[in-house]
């Protein structure tokens, strides 16, 4: 019974979140101001040709720094877990 209630709740929540999306046309989001801005000014403001790389490494440099740090810490965690599994190899 508990499981049925859980599944029903999840289904209702999913339907609630998905309902507004179903009516949208593909490729036409409501706000495109930022896209237009990056495409128009990306080259002159960052000096790079690839707009995606411009966004990742210049406009959103902090985000990339966080990603790199997350990867670093992930390796730290994997090392901590697996080092002690068999004989404590470093």
């Amino acid at each position: 019974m508990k499981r049925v209630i859980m599944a029903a709740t999840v289904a209702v929540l999913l339907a609630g979140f998905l309902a507004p999306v179903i009516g949208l046309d593909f490729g036409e989001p409501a706000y495109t101001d930022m896209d237009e801005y990056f495409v128009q000014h990306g080259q002159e403001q960052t000096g790079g040709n690839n707009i995606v790389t411009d966004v990742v490494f210049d406009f959103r440099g902090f985000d990339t720094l966080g990603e790199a740090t997350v990867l670093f810490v992930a390796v730290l965690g994997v090392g901590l877990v697996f080092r002690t599994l068999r004989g404590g190899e470093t």
Partner: protein
Amino acid sequence: MRMSKVVRTAADILFPFVLIFGFYIVVHGHLTPGGGFQGGAVIATAIVLLIAAYGYDAIARRITKDALRNTEALGLIAFIATALVALALGAGFFYNWLAGTGLLFGMPVGFGPNPGDLNTGGTIPLMNLAVGIEVLGALSLIVLYMLSGTQEAA
């Protein structure tokens, strides 16, 4: 545990090409799809290919975890240092201080659609390289750590 001679020979032949393809993705990150993360993953795949063909023990003796750890830390430090140089020059953190100066990667970019030149982009290619070095160290290190903790390594 190493695989048969066929697999080992195929890995030997494929290894340099996978490496070159990975470095190509990293270096051309500011011109073509891809970049540091993707190229670093491809290079780590080459190392994993060697491990799959020759077994953990043979590879872990040559590519040590210490070296990969240092590689990973070096990449992250280089990435942060590139961003910090902008502060030393009096601009904001992550400012593109190399673009348009005429130095390495410093050629001014042509506006509008153009085929692109490798010698543009300022700090973006440098950061791509740093992130590529970090990702290649991190992903191969994860595989080595996981193998060292499982039955396969024994």
